[in-house]
C-alpha cells in the first residue's frame, strides 16, 4: 500500500504519529483488506485497539475519495453502520469514534440508535441520517419497520458487527444475519466486517456473518496477535470441612475477598446473577462500611443513568470496586481496572478468559483474575479452569442458530409493516443467509400462510387480519398492528417489567412484575444496592423510599442456569481423575481433599472409566443419583431418557433435578434400577425415538415455546403505561401451546419448540457421544445411607422436571391439596 497515493492513509498515519503511537501490524492488515474491498472477520480481544482497526479504514477511504473536500460540511448520508450487542457499549463506541473525527477535523455526525435513545432524537435522525450510526440488532430491525427505510441506507458503505461472538450463538445473531441480507440487497457492494473474541469456530463465524453466497476469495480472517499474560488464583476456604457442599452465593469467602479489593487500585467483581450481585454489594458494605462511596453495583436491571454513572466513574478511576454481572463482560476498556474477581463457576473457558481480559488492558500487561468458589465442588472446577486458562486450550465453539421460524416470522412482519415485500425476491434473499439456507418452499409457504390467514383457511366467521396482499406486495395496513409490532421487535423474551422509582420520581431501574406482585405495601427489598420500602404501585411503576433495615428480600431473577460447556466437562472429569490418582499438585484439589474423602468413604469417587449411581431413601421417597459429569444440558437429556426408559418398566412418576455433575430421579415408588440396567438403560439405539416420547411427558418443549411465542408475536406485553388497552389480548404461552397441540399439531412454531429442545437442550450429537462414553464405563451402583457430597447439591435443588407413566387419576389419589400456608 503506497501512502503517497492515498492521502487518507497518510492522514491517519500522521494522526498516529502525533500521538506517538504505532499502529499494530494486524490493524494495518485490516486496513489493507478493507481498502481492497474485502469483507472479513477480525479476531481480536477487548482492549486491543480493535475499534481503530475498523474505524480508520472507513475514514481512509473517505479521505481518499474526497481529498480536497473531506473537511467540508455536507449531507453525506449514512456511511457506516456499527452494530453492537449491548446498548451500554454504544455510548463508549460513539465517544471513541467521535474523538477521531474531531481531531481529524472531519465534520461527520456520529449518533446512536438504541432502545436507550429518546424518540425525539430518533425522529430527528429520520429526517437526516448521521454519517455513522451505532445500533443494536433490534434497533436495526426497528429501522427496517419504518416507512421508506430504504432511503436511510442509500449511501451506506460499510457495516461493522462488533462482538460478533456474543450474537452468533443466539437468535439475535439470526436477526443480524437477516438484517445484513436486506442491506446487501439494497447495497450490493457493501463492506461487511465482524469483530469477534477467540472462539473455537472462527471460520464458521465468518461464514454465518457473510452468508452462503459470499465468495470465500473475497473474505479474510485476521487475527490480532496481542500477547497477554494471564494469572489465575483461587481464593480458598480456611476450613474446607465447614465450607458448604451446595449453594451459589459464595459470601462465606467475603472476608478473603476484602483484602484483594484493598490491595488493588480498582477491581471488577463478576457474579453470575443479578441477585447475587445485589447480595455481594450489600454484604461488602456491611463488612466494611468505609467502602461506601468507593464501590458500586452494575447490572442490566438498573436504570441507564445509574449504569452510565458507574461506567464513567470506572473510566475516571474513581471507584475501588464494582460488583457486576455479564453487564460488564464486554465493552471498551476500563483502563484503570487492575484485577478481576469471578464469584462462582463461569461455566466455560471462553467466558472466564473474556472476564479475565477486562483487567490489565495495556498490551503486554498481565491480566489477573481471582476465582472465588461458592461451594466445595467448585474447587475442582477452579483447578480445571486454571489449567484451561494457562494452557490456552479448549476454547468453546459458539454454535449458530439454524432456521428459527419465529425470528423469520417476526422479520417478514417487520418488512410488511414498513414498505411491504414481494415473496419471491425475499425468499431468495432470506435463503442466502446461513441460518435459512435450507429453508424450503413448503416451510416458506407455511409461514406466509401463517401471517396472512393465521395458519388456516379463512371462513365466514373468521376475521383474521395481519398481513394482506396488495398488488403482489405483502403489507400490514392496520395501524394498531403496526404499532404493536414495532413495540415488540426483538428476540429476547423477558418478563413484564415494572420500573422502580423514588416518590420524587427518580428512576432506579426495573424489576420483574411478578416480584413486585409478591410484595405488600411496607415490605422491604434490596435493589440497586439499597434497601427499599415499597410505598405503592401505580400502573407499571413501583414507588419506593429508602428503608433503614438490612432485613430485606432480594429479587431472585430467573436465568443464570447456564450449563458447563463440553470442554469444561471433559477437563473436570480429568481433574477428578488426577485427584483420585494423586497426580495433580493443584492447591484447589489439595484443599478439597477432605470432602473427596467423605465422598469416597460414604460411596466412591468415580474415576474416568466408571459411572457412579447412588441409591438412597428418605422421607421424600426413593432417590437415584447418576454422575456422568457432562454438564447440565446433557444431563437434562440423559435424565429424561433414563426416566422415560425406567417408566416403561412399571407405572411410575419421577421428579428430576440436575446440575453440572449429575442428576437425580426421585419417586414415591421403588425404582426398578437393577432391572433397568440389565435392559440397556444407556443404549444409544432408538435414542431419538425415546427422547421424543419422553418429551411428550415433560414440560421442556412447553417452556421453550415461551420465547418462540414472544418472538413470533403471539404474545403481546402491552404498551408502556397503558396496559389496560390491550388487556383483552392477554394470554400465556402455555395456553397457546395447549391449543396448538390440540388443533394445529403441525404448526411450525410448535415444531420449532421441539426442535429447539432437541438441538440445544438435548443436543443429540453430544447426547449420543455421552451415552457411548457411558457404555464403555463400568457401572458402579452404591447404596448410600445419606446424601453424599456429590448428591446433596442436586437433592436440594428446587427446580425440577417431571415425567410420569401413570394415569392422572392414579397420581391424584396419592396427593394432597395444598392449603393456605399459616404464617
Amino acid at each position, binding site marked *: 500500500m503506497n501512502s503517497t497515493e492515498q492521502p487518507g492513509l497518510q492522514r491517519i498515519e500522521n494522526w498516529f504519529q502525533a500521538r506517538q503511537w504505532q499502529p499494530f501490524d494486524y490493524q494495518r492488515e485490516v486496513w489493507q483488506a478493507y481498502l481492497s474491498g474485502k469483507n472479513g472477520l477480525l479476531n481480536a480481544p477487548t482492549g486491543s485497539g480493535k475499534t481503530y482497526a475498523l474505524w480508520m479504514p472507513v475514514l481512509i477511504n473517505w479521505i481518499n475519495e474526497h481529498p480536497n473536500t473531506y473537511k467540508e460540511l455536507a449531507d453525506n448520508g449514512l456511511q457506516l453502520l456499527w452494530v453492537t450487542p449491548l446498548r451500554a457499549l454504544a455510548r463508549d463506541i460513539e465517544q471513541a469514534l467521535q474523538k477521531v473525527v474531531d481531531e481529524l477535523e472531519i465534520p461527520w455526525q456520529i449518533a446512536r440508535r438504541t432502545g436507550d435513545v429518546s424518540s425525539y432524537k430518533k425522529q430527528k435522525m429520520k429526517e437526516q441520517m448521521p454519517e455513522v450510526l451505532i445500533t443494536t440488532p433490534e434497533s436495526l430491525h426497528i429501522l427496517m419497520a419504518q416507512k421508506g427505510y430504504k432511503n436511510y441506507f442509500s449511501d451506506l458503505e460499510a457495516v461493522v458487527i462488533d462482538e460478533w461472538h456474543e450474537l452468533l450463538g443466539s437468535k439475535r445473531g439470526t436477526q443480524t444475519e437477516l438484517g445484513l441480507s436486506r442491506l446487501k440487497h439494497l447495497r450490493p457492494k457493501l463492506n461487511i466486517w465482524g469483530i469477534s473474541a477467540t472462539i473455537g469456530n472462527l471460520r464458521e463465524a465468518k461464514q454465518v456473518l457473510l452468508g452462503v453466497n459470499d465468495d470465500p476469495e473475497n473474505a479474510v480472517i485476521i487475527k490480532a496477535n496481542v500477547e497477554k499474560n494471564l494469572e489465575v488464583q483461587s481464593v480458598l476456604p480456611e476450613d474446607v470441612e465447614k465450607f458448604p457442599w451446595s449453594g451459589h452465593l459464595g459470601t462465606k469467602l467475603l472476608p478473603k475477598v476484602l483484602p484483594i479489593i484493598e490491595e488493588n487500585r480498582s477491581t471488577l467483581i463478576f457474579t453470575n446473577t443479578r441477585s447475587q450481585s445485589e447480595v455481594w454489594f450489600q454484604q461488602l458494605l456491611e463488612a466494611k462500611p468505609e467502602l461506601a462511596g468507593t464501590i458500586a453495583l452494575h447490572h442490566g436491571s438498573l436504570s441507564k443513568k445509574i449504569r452510565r454513572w458507574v461506567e464513567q466513574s470506572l473510566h475516571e478511576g474513581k471507584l475501588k470496586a464494582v460488583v457486576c454481572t455479564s453487564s460488564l463482560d464486554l465493552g471498551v476498556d476500563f483502563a484503570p481496572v487492575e484485577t478481576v474477581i469471578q464469584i462462582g463457576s463461569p461455566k466455560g473457558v471462553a467466558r472466564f478468559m473474556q472476564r479475565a481480559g477486562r483487567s490489565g488492558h495495556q498490551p503486554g500487561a498481565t491480566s489477573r483474575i481471582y476465582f472465588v468458589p461458592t461451594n466445595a465442588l467448585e474447587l475442582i472446577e477452579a483447578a480445571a479452569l486454571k489449567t484451561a486458562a494457562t494452557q490456552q486450550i479448549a476454547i468453546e465453539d459458539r454454535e449458530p442458530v439454524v432456521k428459527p421460524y419465529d425470528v423469520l416470522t417476526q422479520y417478514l412482519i417487520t418488512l410488511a409493516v414498513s414498505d411491504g415485500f414481494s415473496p419471491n425476491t425475499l425468499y431468495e434473499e432470506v435463503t442466502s443467509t446461513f441460518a435459512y439456507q435450507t429453508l424450503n418452499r413448503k416451510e416458506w409457504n407455511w409461514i406466509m400462510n401463517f401471517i396472512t390467514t393465521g395458519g388456516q383457511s379463512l371462513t*365466514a366467521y373468521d*376475521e*383474521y387480519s*395481519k398481513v394482506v396482499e396488495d398488488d403482489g406486495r405483502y403489507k400490514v395496513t392496520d395501524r394498531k398492528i403496526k404499532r404493536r409490532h414495532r413495540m415488540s421487535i426483538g428476540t429476547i423474551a423477558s418478563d413484564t417489567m415494572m420500573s422502580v422509582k423514588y416518590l420524587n420520581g427518580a428512576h432506579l431501574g426495573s424489576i420483574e412484575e411478578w416480584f413486585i406482585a409478591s410484595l405488600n405495601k411496607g415490605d422491604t427489598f434490596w435493589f440497586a444496592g439499597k434497601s427499599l420500602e415499597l410505598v405503592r404501585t401505580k400502573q407499571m411503576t413501583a414507588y419506593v423510599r429508602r428503608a433503614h433495615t438490612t432485613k430485606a428480600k432480594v429479587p431472585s431473577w430467573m436465568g443464570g442456569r447456564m450449563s458447563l460447556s463440553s470442554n469444561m466437562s471433559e477437563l473436570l472429569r480429568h481433574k477428578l481423575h488426577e485427584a483420585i490418582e494423586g497426580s495433580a499438585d493443584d492447591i484447589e484439589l489439595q484443599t478439597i481433599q477432605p470432602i473427596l474423602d467423605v465422598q469416597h468413604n460414604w460411596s466412591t469417587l468415580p474415576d474416568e472409566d466408571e459411572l457412579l449411581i447412588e441409591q438412597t431413601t428418605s422421607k421424600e421417597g426413593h432417590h437415584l443419583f447418576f454422575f456422568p459429569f457432562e454438564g447440565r444440558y446433557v444431563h437434562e437429556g440423559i435424565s429424561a431418557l433414563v426416566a422415560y426408559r425406567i417408566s416403561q418398566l412399571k407405572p411410575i412418576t419421577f421428579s428430576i433435578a440436575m446440575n453440572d455433575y449429575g442428576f437425580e430421579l426421585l419417586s414415591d415408588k421403588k425404582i426398578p434400577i437393577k432391572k433397568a440396567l440389565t435392559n440397556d438403560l444407556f443404549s444409544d439405539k432408538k435414542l431419538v425415538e425415546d427422547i421424543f416420547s419422553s418429551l411428550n411427558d415433560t414440560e421442556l418443549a412447553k417452556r421453550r415455546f415461551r420465547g418462540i411465542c414472544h418472538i413470533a408475536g403471539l404474545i403481546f406485553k402491552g404498551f408502556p403505561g397503558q396496559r389496560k388497552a390491550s388487556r*383483552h389480548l392477554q394470554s400465556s404461552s402455555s395456553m*397457546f401451546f395447549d391449543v396448538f397441540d390440540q388443533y394445529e399439531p403441525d404448526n411450525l412454531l410448535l415444531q420449532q419448540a421441539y426442535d429447539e429442545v432437541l438441538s440445544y437442550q438435548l443436543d443429540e450429537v453430544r447426547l449420543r457421544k455421552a451415552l457411548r462414553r457411558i457404555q464403555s464405563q463400568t457401572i458402579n451402583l452404591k447404596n448410600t445411607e445419606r446424601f453424599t457430597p456429590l448428591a446433596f447439591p442436586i437433592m436440594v435443588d428446587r427446580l425440577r422436571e417431571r415425567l410420569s407413566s401413570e394415569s392422572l387419576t392414579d397420581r391424584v389419589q396419592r396427593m394432597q391439596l395444598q392449603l393456605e400456608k399459616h404464617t
Partner: protein
Amino acid sequence: MISNASTFNLCGNRFWLLPERAIYWKKKETLFIADLHIGKSAHFRKHGIAVPKQVGRSNLNRLEQLIEDIKPEHLIILGDLFHSDINKEWQQFIDWRKRYRQLQISLVVGNHDILKVERYHTGLINIFKKMKLEPFLLVHDKSNYSSADEQGLYILSGHIHPAAKLNGKGRQAMKFPCFYFGQQYGILPAFGTFTGTHIISPTEKDKVFIVVEDKVFSVN
C-alpha cells in the same frame, strides 16, 4: 344423562358438579357455568394473533353437548360470556342460541361483558348485575360483595378461573381447575378453553373439587 359428576350439598341444596366445569341444580333444573369467553379466539385473530379458530367452535360444541345431556330449563352464566367487543363469533353464538329457544338463558354481567344491552336482548338473553336465587346470590366477581351485606345469601361466582395445587410424596405437584366452596361464597371453574387459571389457597374449612380429565374429585 349425567356421568362422572360429584354431588355436593350446599346450603341444603343438592348440586351436581360436572367435569364439563358446570354445576347442575336438579331441583330447579338450572345449569350454572362461568367465564365462557366466547369470541376470544376471534378477537385475537382479528388483531393479528393466530389462535386456532377451532377454539371458539369447541366452546360452543361443548356447551351444546352439555345442554343436550342435561336438558336444563335455565342456563345461568356467571359472567364473561363474551370476551371482547363485537366480532363474528357473537353471531355464531346467537345462531346457536336461537336453535334452543326453549332454554332460558340469564347472564350475570362480568367485566368482559361490554356489548350493548340490545345485543343481549335480541339474543334472548336476560341480563343482571347480580341475581338473587334463594338461598344464593349469583355474581361475577365475589370480591365486590359480601354475604353479610346480602342478607346472608351464599354467593356463587366466577371471574378468577380457580385452580387447585396438589402435592405428593417425591416432590410431585400438579394443578387442576377446581370448584371452590368457602364459608360464604363459592367459585366456579372457567368453562371456556383458551383461558388461564389462578391458583387458590383454600383453608381446611373449605371444600374443593378438582376436575381431572373427565372426572370430578373431592380433594378434602
